[in-house]
Protein backbone atom coordinates (compact mmCIF):
# COMPACT_ATOMS: atom_id res chain seq x y z
CA UNK A 1 0.00 0.00 0.00
CA UNK A 2 2.69 2.44 1.08
CA UNK A 3 4.82 1.52 -1.92
CA UNK A 4 1.95 2.18 -4.26
CA UNK A 5 1.27 5.54 -2.63
CA UNK A 6 4.86 6.51 -3.11
CA UNK A 7 5.40 5.08 -6.56
CA UNK A 8 6.30 8.52 -7.85
CA UNK A 9 8.00 10.04 -4.85
CA UNK A 10 10.20 7.01 -4.29
CA UNK A 11 11.95 7.89 -7.53
CA UNK A 12 13.50 10.88 -5.85
CA UNK A 13 15.93 11.45 -3.09
CA UNK A 14 16.32 14.72 -1.33
CA UNK A 15 19.31 16.17 0.34
CA UNK A 16 20.34 19.64 1.41
CA UNK A 17 22.54 21.97 -0.53
CA UNK A 18 24.20 24.02 2.14
CA UNK A 19 25.78 26.64 -0.06
CA UNK A 20 22.45 28.40 -0.42
CA UNK A 21 20.40 26.65 2.25
CA UNK A 22 17.94 25.34 -0.33
CA UNK A 23 16.74 21.81 -0.82
CA UNK A 24 18.29 19.86 -3.61
CA UNK A 25 16.69 16.84 -5.21
CA UNK A 26 18.69 13.95 -6.54
CA UNK A 27 16.64 12.34 -9.27
CA UNK A 28 16.61 8.57 -9.60
CA UNK A 29 18.78 8.88 -12.70
CA UNK A 30 21.35 10.96 -10.85
CA UNK A 31 21.27 8.66 -7.85
CA UNK A 32 21.88 5.66 -10.11
CA UNK A 33 24.69 7.49 -11.87
CA UNK A 34 26.40 8.15 -8.54
CA UNK A 35 25.90 4.50 -7.54
CA UNK A 36 27.46 3.40 -10.84
CA UNK A 37 30.47 5.71 -10.37
CA UNK A 38 31.05 4.21 -6.92
CA UNK A 39 30.64 0.67 -8.19
CA UNK A 40 33.13 1.33 -11.01
CA UNK A 41 35.56 2.86 -8.51
CA UNK A 42 35.41 -0.21 -6.25
CA UNK A 43 35.93 -2.60 -9.18
CA UNK A 44 38.75 -0.71 -10.86
CA UNK A 45 40.67 0.17 -7.69
CA UNK A 46 39.98 -3.01 -5.67
CA UNK A 47 39.03 -0.75 -2.77
CA UNK A 48 37.07 -2.41 -0.01
CA UNK A 49 34.38 0.24 0.25
CA UNK A 50 33.48 3.59 -1.33
CA UNK A 51 30.91 5.92 0.17
CA UNK A 52 29.38 9.11 -1.18
CA UNK A 53 28.06 11.36 1.59
CA UNK A 54 27.13 14.96 2.15
CA UNK A 55 29.20 17.31 4.29
CA UNK A 56 26.61 17.05 7.06
CA UNK A 57 27.66 13.45 7.43
CA UNK A 58 24.61 11.85 5.84
CA UNK A 59 25.52 8.77 3.77
CA UNK A 60 23.92 8.93 0.31
CA UNK A 61 25.26 5.92 -1.57
CA UNK A 62 27.91 3.26 -1.17
CA UNK A 63 29.51 0.36 -3.01
CA UNK A 64 31.69 -2.49 -1.82
CA UNK A 65 31.91 -4.43 1.37
CA UNK A 66 30.28 -2.72 4.35
CA UNK A 67 30.85 -5.56 6.79
CA UNK A 68 30.09 -4.37 10.29
CA UNK A 69 30.84 -0.74 9.55
CA UNK A 70 28.20 1.71 10.73
CA UNK A 71 27.97 3.91 7.62
CA UNK A 72 26.17 6.76 9.38
CA UNK A 73 28.76 6.93 12.13
CA UNK A 74 31.66 6.69 9.68
CA UNK A 75 30.32 9.47 7.44
CA UNK A 76 29.55 11.67 10.47
CA UNK A 77 33.14 11.36 11.66
CA UNK A 78 34.50 11.84 8.13
CA UNK A 79 32.49 15.05 7.77
CA UNK A 80 33.77 16.12 11.20
CA UNK A 81 37.31 15.50 10.03
CA UNK A 82 36.75 17.89 7.15
CA UNK A 83 35.39 20.43 9.64
CA UNK A 84 38.58 20.17 11.64
CA UNK A 85 40.80 20.51 8.59
CA UNK A 86 38.70 23.44 7.40
CA UNK A 87 39.73 25.18 10.60
CA UNK A 88 43.38 24.34 9.89
CA UNK A 89 43.02 25.59 6.31
CA UNK A 90 41.46 28.81 7.54
CA UNK A 91 44.29 29.40 10.01
CA UNK A 92 47.11 28.64 7.61
CA UNK A 93 45.93 29.81 4.20
CA UNK A 94 43.07 31.20 2.16
CA UNK A 95 41.80 27.71 1.44
CA UNK A 96 38.30 26.98 2.67
CA UNK A 97 38.85 23.25 2.93
CA UNK A 98 41.54 20.77 2.08
CA UNK A 99 40.79 18.77 -1.03
CA UNK A 100 42.00 15.42 0.27
CA UNK A 101 42.66 13.79 3.61
CA UNK A 102 44.56 10.52 3.85
CA UNK A 103 44.76 8.23 6.84
CA UNK A 104 47.27 5.39 6.73
CA UNK A 105 46.49 2.58 9.15
CA UNK A 106 48.34 -0.64 9.93
CA UNK A 107 46.24 -2.76 7.60
CA UNK A 108 43.67 -0.44 6.15
CA UNK A 109 43.84 3.06 4.72
CA UNK A 110 41.17 5.72 4.35
CA UNK A 111 41.13 8.34 1.62
CA UNK A 112 38.70 11.25 1.91
CA UNK A 113 37.97 13.52 -1.03
CA UNK A 114 36.05 16.79 -0.90
CA UNK A 115 33.53 17.14 -3.76
CA UNK A 116 32.45 20.75 -4.37
CA UNK A 117 32.54 21.52 -0.61
CA UNK A 118 29.06 20.02 -0.22
CA UNK A 119 29.85 16.33 -0.58
CA UNK A 120 32.63 13.87 0.15
CA UNK A 121 33.90 10.58 -1.20
CA UNK A 122 35.27 8.09 1.30
CA UNK A 123 37.45 5.22 0.05
CA UNK A 124 38.62 2.36 2.30
CA UNK A 125 41.36 0.15 0.94
CA UNK A 126 43.97 -2.25 2.26
CA UNK A 127 47.76 -2.36 2.02
CA UNK A 128 47.75 -4.36 -1.21
CA UNK A 129 46.37 -1.38 -3.12
CA UNK A 130 48.70 1.46 -4.08
CA UNK A 131 47.73 4.92 -2.86
CA UNK A 132 48.64 6.38 -6.27
CA UNK A 133 46.05 4.17 -7.95
CA UNK A 134 43.40 5.20 -5.45
CA UNK A 135 44.25 8.86 -5.96
CA UNK A 136 44.04 8.66 -9.73
CA UNK A 137 40.83 6.65 -9.82
CA UNK A 138 39.19 8.70 -7.07
CA UNK A 139 40.08 11.85 -8.98
CA UNK A 140 38.24 10.47 -11.99
CA UNK A 141 35.22 9.57 -9.83
CA UNK A 142 35.43 12.99 -8.18
CA UNK A 143 35.25 14.76 -11.55
CA UNK A 144 32.34 12.64 -12.70
CA UNK A 145 30.31 13.26 -9.53
CA UNK A 146 31.20 16.96 -9.57
CA UNK A 147 29.90 17.24 -13.14
CA UNK A 148 26.71 15.43 -12.16
CA UNK A 149 26.16 17.71 -9.18
CA UNK A 150 26.83 20.74 -11.33
CA UNK A 151 23.95 19.73 -13.57
CA UNK A 152 21.80 19.18 -10.52
CA UNK A 153 22.00 22.80 -9.52
CA UNK A 154 19.80 23.60 -12.47
CA UNK A 155 17.23 20.92 -11.69
CA UNK A 156 13.99 22.14 -10.25
CA UNK A 157 13.37 21.99 -6.53
CA UNK A 158 10.68 19.75 -5.25
CA UNK A 159 8.77 19.95 -2.00
CA UNK A 160 8.45 16.53 -0.51
CA UNK A 161 5.79 15.38 1.88
CA UNK A 162 7.40 12.65 3.86
CA UNK A 163 5.95 13.64 7.19
CA UNK A 164 2.20 13.24 6.95
CA UNK A 165 -0.06 13.49 10.00
CA UNK A 166 -0.35 9.73 10.46
CA UNK A 167 3.42 9.32 10.41
CA UNK A 168 3.90 12.14 12.91
CA UNK A 169 1.40 10.59 15.31
CA UNK A 170 3.07 7.18 15.04
CA UNK A 171 6.46 8.80 15.58
CA UNK A 172 5.20 10.58 18.66
CA UNK A 173 3.90 7.29 20.12
CA UNK A 174 7.15 5.52 19.28
CA UNK A 175 9.15 8.25 21.02
CA UNK A 176 7.05 7.84 24.15
CA UNK A 177 7.83 4.13 24.04
CA UNK A 178 11.57 4.42 23.30
CA UNK A 179 12.29 7.41 25.52
CA UNK A 180 9.82 6.28 28.18
CA UNK A 181 7.56 8.84 29.77
Amino acid at each position, binding site marked *: MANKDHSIEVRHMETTQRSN*GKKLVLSETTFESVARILSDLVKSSRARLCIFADMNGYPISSAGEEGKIDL*SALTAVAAGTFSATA*EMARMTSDEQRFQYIYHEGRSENIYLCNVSDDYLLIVLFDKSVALGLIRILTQRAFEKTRDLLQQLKTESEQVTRFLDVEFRNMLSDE*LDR*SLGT
Partner: protein
Amino acid sequence: MHVDWLRQEIIFKIVYYGPGLGGKTTNLKHLHAHLDPAVRSELIVLKTSDERTLYFDFLQLELGRLKGKKPRFHIYTVPGQARYAYGRSIIIRDSDAVVFVADSQRARMDDNLSSMLDLEIKLNRQQRTLGEFPWVMQYNKRDLPNIENLSTLQRRLNFLNAPWYEAVATSGLGVFETLRGAIQLLISKI
Protein backbone atom coordinates in the same frame (compact mmCIF):
# COMPACT_ATOMS: atom_id res chain seq x y z
CA MET B 1 16.74 17.13 7.75
CA HIS B 2 17.53 14.61 5.13
CA VAL B 3 14.83 12.67 3.34
CA ASP B 4 15.87 9.57 1.47
CA TRP B 5 12.97 8.43 -0.67
CA LEU B 6 14.79 5.39 -1.96
CA ARG B 7 15.38 3.91 1.47
CA GLN B 8 12.24 5.56 2.87
CA GLU B 9 14.22 7.15 5.69
CA ILE B 10 14.20 10.55 7.30
CA ILE B 11 17.18 11.77 9.30
CA PHE B 12 16.99 14.65 11.77
CA LYS B 13 19.99 16.44 13.23
CA ILE B 14 19.79 17.46 16.87
CA VAL B 15 22.61 19.42 18.48
CA TYR B 16 23.38 19.77 22.18
CA TYR B 17 24.75 23.28 22.69
CA GLY B 18 25.90 25.18 25.77
CA PRO B 19 28.91 26.37 27.76
CA GLY B 20 31.95 24.17 28.32
CA LEU B 21 31.67 21.68 31.20
CA GLY B 22 27.89 22.15 31.26
CA GLY B 23 27.09 18.45 30.79
CA LYS B 24 26.40 18.01 27.07
CA THR B 25 28.55 14.91 26.71
CA THR B 26 27.16 13.54 29.99
CA ASN B 27 23.66 13.77 28.49
CA LEU B 28 24.76 11.67 25.52
CA LYS B 29 26.58 9.18 27.71
CA HIS B 30 23.43 8.62 29.73
CA LEU B 31 21.32 8.20 26.58
CA HIS B 32 23.84 5.70 25.24
CA ALA B 33 23.98 3.74 28.48
CA HIS B 34 20.23 3.53 28.99
CA LEU B 35 18.69 3.33 25.54
CA ASP B 36 17.86 -0.09 24.13
CA PRO B 37 20.97 -1.08 22.09
CA ALA B 38 18.58 -2.06 19.30
CA VAL B 39 17.65 1.59 18.71
CA ARG B 40 20.95 3.38 19.23
CA SER B 41 24.44 3.35 17.71
CA GLU B 42 27.73 3.31 19.53
CA LEU B 43 28.65 6.64 21.09
CA ILE B 44 31.48 8.36 19.28
CA VAL B 45 33.41 10.76 21.49
CA LEU B 46 36.17 12.84 19.95
CA LYS B 47 37.84 14.30 23.01
CA THR B 48 41.09 15.82 24.17
CA SER B 49 43.43 14.02 26.55
CA ASP B 50 41.75 15.76 29.50
CA GLU B 51 38.30 14.47 28.57
CA ARG B 52 37.06 17.68 26.96
CA THR B 53 35.09 17.47 23.72
CA LEU B 54 37.38 18.34 20.81
CA TYR B 55 35.29 18.06 17.64
CA PHE B 56 31.93 16.63 18.67
CA ASP B 57 30.21 13.59 20.17
CA PHE B 58 27.83 11.61 18.01
CA LEU B 59 25.02 9.19 18.78
CA GLN B 60 22.42 7.85 16.42
CA LEU B 61 18.89 6.96 17.51
CA GLU B 62 17.04 4.79 15.04
CA LEU B 63 13.39 3.97 15.55
CA GLY B 64 11.75 1.06 13.76
CA ARG B 65 9.81 1.45 10.55
CA LEU B 66 6.59 3.38 10.96
CA LYS B 67 4.16 3.01 8.08
CA GLY B 68 7.09 1.79 6.01
CA LYS B 69 9.22 4.83 6.85
CA LYS B 70 12.23 4.85 9.13
CA PRO B 71 12.99 7.92 11.30
CA ARG B 72 16.58 8.38 12.48
CA PHE B 73 18.07 11.02 14.72
CA HIS B 74 21.70 12.11 14.52
CA ILE B 75 22.55 13.62 17.88
CA TYR B 76 25.65 15.79 18.17
CA THR B 77 27.29 17.80 20.90
CA VAL B 78 29.49 20.78 20.14
CA PRO B 79 32.76 21.55 21.92
CA GLY B 80 31.85 24.14 24.56
CA GLN B 81 35.21 25.81 24.89
CA ALA B 82 35.39 29.30 23.36
CA ARG B 83 38.37 28.51 21.13
CA TYR B 84 36.42 25.93 19.11
CA ALA B 85 33.93 28.49 17.77
CA TYR B 86 34.56 27.59 14.14
CA GLY B 87 33.90 23.89 14.74
CA ARG B 88 30.61 24.77 16.44
CA SER B 89 29.49 26.81 13.45
CA ILE B 90 29.97 23.80 11.18
CA ILE B 91 28.17 21.36 13.45
CA ILE B 92 25.20 23.66 14.02
CA ARG B 93 24.79 24.06 10.26
CA ASP B 94 21.55 22.50 9.01
CA SER B 95 20.57 21.30 12.46
CA ASP B 96 16.86 20.68 12.98
CA ALA B 97 16.66 21.28 16.73
CA VAL B 98 18.89 22.33 19.61
CA VAL B 99 19.04 21.30 23.25
CA PHE B 100 20.68 24.13 25.15
CA VAL B 101 22.36 22.63 28.23
CA ALA B 102 22.68 25.45 30.75
CA ASP B 103 24.81 25.10 33.87
CA SER B 104 22.57 25.99 36.84
CA GLN B 105 25.43 27.16 39.04
CA ARG B 106 25.28 30.85 39.90
CA ALA B 107 28.88 31.41 38.84
CA ARG B 108 28.13 30.13 35.31
CA MET B 109 25.35 32.55 34.35
CA ASP B 110 27.60 34.73 32.19
CA ASP B 111 28.97 31.64 30.46
CA ASN B 112 25.42 30.47 29.75
CA LEU B 113 24.48 33.82 28.26
CA SER B 114 27.66 34.02 26.18
CA SER B 115 26.97 30.58 24.77
CA MET B 116 23.36 31.53 23.93
CA LEU B 117 24.58 34.62 22.14
CA ASP B 118 27.15 32.52 20.28
CA LEU B 119 24.35 30.14 19.23
CA GLU B 120 22.15 32.99 18.05
CA ILE B 121 25.00 34.46 15.97
CA LYS B 122 25.62 31.11 14.32
CA LEU B 123 21.93 30.63 13.58
CA ASN B 124 21.72 34.17 12.18
CA ARG B 125 24.41 33.29 9.66
CA GLN B 126 21.99 30.71 8.29
CA GLN B 127 19.09 33.16 8.27
CA ARG B 128 17.61 31.57 11.37
CA THR B 129 17.02 32.81 14.90
CA LEU B 130 16.33 31.35 18.35
CA GLY B 131 13.02 33.20 18.32
CA GLU B 132 11.65 30.82 15.69
CA PHE B 133 14.00 27.85 15.79
CA PRO B 134 12.92 24.64 17.62
CA TRP B 135 15.02 24.49 20.77
CA VAL B 136 14.58 23.50 24.39
CA MET B 137 16.34 24.61 27.56
CA GLN B 138 17.82 22.14 30.00
CA TYR B 139 18.81 23.43 33.42
CA ASN B 140 21.49 20.93 34.32
CA LYS B 141 23.29 20.20 37.61
CA ARG B 142 20.21 20.75 39.77
CA ASP B 143 21.80 18.59 42.48
CA LEU B 144 24.69 20.97 43.15
CA PRO B 145 24.90 23.64 45.87
CA ASN B 146 25.19 27.27 44.77
CA ILE B 147 22.66 26.96 41.98
CA GLU B 148 20.27 29.65 40.85
CA ASN B 149 16.62 29.12 41.68
CA LEU B 150 14.28 28.32 38.82
CA SER B 151 12.51 31.65 38.63
CA THR B 152 15.84 33.47 38.29
CA LEU B 153 17.02 31.02 35.62
CA GLN B 154 13.79 31.46 33.71
CA ARG B 155 14.03 35.23 33.87
CA ARG B 156 17.72 35.49 33.01
CA LEU B 157 18.07 32.71 30.44
CA ASN B 158 14.70 31.66 29.11
CA PHE B 159 13.39 35.03 27.99
CA LEU B 160 12.27 33.44 24.70
CA ASN B 161 10.00 30.97 26.55
CA ALA B 162 11.46 27.77 25.18
CA PRO B 163 10.21 24.51 26.73
CA TRP B 164 12.48 23.82 29.70
CA TYR B 165 13.56 20.84 31.75
CA GLU B 166 15.43 20.39 35.00
CA ALA B 167 18.17 17.80 34.87
CA VAL B 168 20.97 16.05 36.68
CA ALA B 169 22.75 14.50 33.71
CA THR B 170 25.19 12.56 35.90
CA SER B 171 22.29 10.53 37.34
CA GLY B 172 20.10 10.73 34.24
CA LEU B 173 17.37 12.83 35.79
CA GLY B 174 15.57 14.73 33.04
CA VAL B 175 17.84 13.49 30.25
CA PHE B 176 15.28 11.40 28.33
CA GLU B 177 12.55 13.98 28.94
CA THR B 178 14.72 16.72 27.43
CA LEU B 179 15.48 14.80 24.25
CA ARG B 180 11.90 13.68 23.86
CA GLY B 181 10.73 17.29 24.33
CA ALA B 182 13.16 18.53 21.69
CA ILE B 183 12.05 15.91 19.15
CA GLN B 184 8.36 16.50 19.81
CA LEU B 185 8.87 20.24 19.38
CA LEU B 186 10.80 19.67 16.17
CA ILE B 187 8.08 17.45 14.72
CA SER B 188 5.36 19.90 15.68
CA LYS B 189 7.19 22.76 13.94
CA ILE B 190 7.78 21.07 10.60
